[in-house]
């Protein structure tokens, strides 16, 4: 069953109509070439119009689309081979945070790390809805340091509604785990690319999002809080999520124009969920391009650039 967002419905209706038209034409042996052509154009127009006028809340909806590619989907499509590595060597293997070495076109060996969401009810629970516990962040850091040891670049794919706010997570130091990652990522001697592929919620996202290049895919969000939680705190009601999304300026365009990310990765028209292959192809090209550029920079310079970039973020009056 395909999931349709409200603003996707008019497009889907036209697409159904197109299929119906072609079916009828075959059954009744009539020529509908002209009608098909004009309807196809109409669909493209409507798609372009809809997707160039998305509200911020609609981008949030797309970022959470249940058919959207997740971390392991991208890894599978980008890598000729991938070896998953488990565990934080201390407490457990966090299923909400995955990682391992992957090959890209026999050109690059890359350490991929990312939050993982599940697609059905059972998988969602297994992946804890993409909300890592402290051991997830510690596993991520372990893999990053391993990549550094073997001089391999790190690519982080970020897709989380937040770090898990649970009892055990607090007992095992959720705050400390995220803080350590953020600090230690600045000092990694290898190139680090971070890409928001879905949801980038707060510290839970930033815990694997300190990099030489921080990029957002077109239909994603990245901010300090989700629109729903922001609404509940500032408006004291869950009903202002649209306004909260507008106020937070959390889209890729917003984040780029505020100088808080380095670039935007375009998605296939209609969103990555409609064309996993197309989305993965673009992502792969971007990763290859960025790695080629970053490999040319001296590691110490890379670290200093990384520190300087984040040190400039913020607006104050003096």
């Amino acid at each position, binding site marked *: 069953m395909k999931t349709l967002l409200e603003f996707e419905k008019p497009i889907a209706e036209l697409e159904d109509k197109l299929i119906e038209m072609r079916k009828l034409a075959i059954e009744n042996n009539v020529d509908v070439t002209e009608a098909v052509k004009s309807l196809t154009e109409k669909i493209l127009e409507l798609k372009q119009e809809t997707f160039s006028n998305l509200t911020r809340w609609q981008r949030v909806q797309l970022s959470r689309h249940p058919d959207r590619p997740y971390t392991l989907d991208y890894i599978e499509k980008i890598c000729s081979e991938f070896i998953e590595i488990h565990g934080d060597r201390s407490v457990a293997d966090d299923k909400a945070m995955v990682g391992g070495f992957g090959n890209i076109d026999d050109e690059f060996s890359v350490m991929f790390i990312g939050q993982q969401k599940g697609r059905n009810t059972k998988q969602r629970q297994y992946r804890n809805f993409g909300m890592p516990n402290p051991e997830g962040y510690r596993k991520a850091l372990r893999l990053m340091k391993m990549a550094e040891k073997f001089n391999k670049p790190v690519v982080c794919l970020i897709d989380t509604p937040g770090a898990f706010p649970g009892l055990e997570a607090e007992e095992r*130091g959720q705050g400390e785990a995220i803080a350590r990652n953020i600090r230690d990522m600045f000092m990694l001697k290898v190139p680090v690319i971070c890409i928001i592929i879905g949801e980038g919620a707060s510290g839970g996202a930033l815990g694997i999002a*300190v990099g030489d290049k921080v990029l957002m895919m077109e239909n994603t969000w990245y901010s300090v809080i989700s629109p729903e939680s922001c609404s509940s705190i500032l408006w004291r009601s869950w009903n202002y999520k649209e306004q909260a999304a507008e106020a937070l300026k959390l889209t890729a365009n917003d984040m780029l124009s505020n100088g808080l990310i380095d670039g935007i990765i375009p998605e296939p028209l209609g969103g990555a969920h409609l064309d996993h292959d197309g989305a993965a192809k673009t992502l792969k090209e971007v990763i290859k391009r960025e790695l080629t550029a970053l490999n040319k920079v001296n590691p110490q310079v890379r670290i200093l650039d990384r520190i300087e970039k984040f*040190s400039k973020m913020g607006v104050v009056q003096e």
Partner: protein
Amino acid sequence: MSWFTRKDKGIQTPTEAKREAPDGLWYQCPSCKKAIHTREHRVFAFTCSNCNYHEKIGSQEYFELLFDETKYTELDPMMGSGDPLEFTDTKKYVDRIKSTEYKTGLKDAVRTAVGNMNGLPLTISAMDFSFIGGSMGSVVGEKIARGIDYSLKHKQPFLMISRSGGARMMEAGFSLMQMAKTSAKLALLAEAGIPYISLLTDPTTGGVTASYAMLGDFNISEPGALIGFAGPRVIKETIGKDLPKGFQSAEFVLEHGFLDFIVDRKDLKDKLTSLLQMLQ
């Protein structure tokens, strides 16, 4: 439920009011209800002489408690918030800032000062919870970053005193990146081998816990402080049951291995001095 009560009581007694109180007035301890002379309360470093309840105090009180002869130089005292997102919820962010400045006499939720503590040069950044819940926006991040820069330049220890509800939502993405900025500077401080002491006071939660507050060479706290990443209300909603007694208290966090020690505020200056002397 005990710590919920404790927290609420703390909120009912803002430090500002007491500080402004003329000598001769009485302070009532919100925990044991004992009336204490304000002068005595001050001599006891704003802790209760009866039950040792640590009153929530601000940057001014910590500077006066820790710097010799209360002599210190404040860094960037005039730095104030911008409004890069032109944020409006039920109220405009710029108006919120203005009214909070007026109410508290502060420019933002952190102040940084340099001076001597028992003769040892020290940089202190101390947060003020009274300024929008001690929330971390660009000013908080930038002032802490510059405080660390000062410590790097002058090779002197850095003391961070956190008291914060976490991120400042009205600065959204900018607020989030202050976690990265401050942690970047702390990475440089660590590399330079300069001591960083993080004192987590009541309460320290959210993005502050998940960045500079937990990155000390020494993470220390005051008795009874609430320390956590997620707030107790959110955790309670997540797990769907009441939280155990003492959950997220400084004592709990110490027991789980994330604090180095808990220090009574009356001993803070001497204990920090001894510690820093041992590192020299």
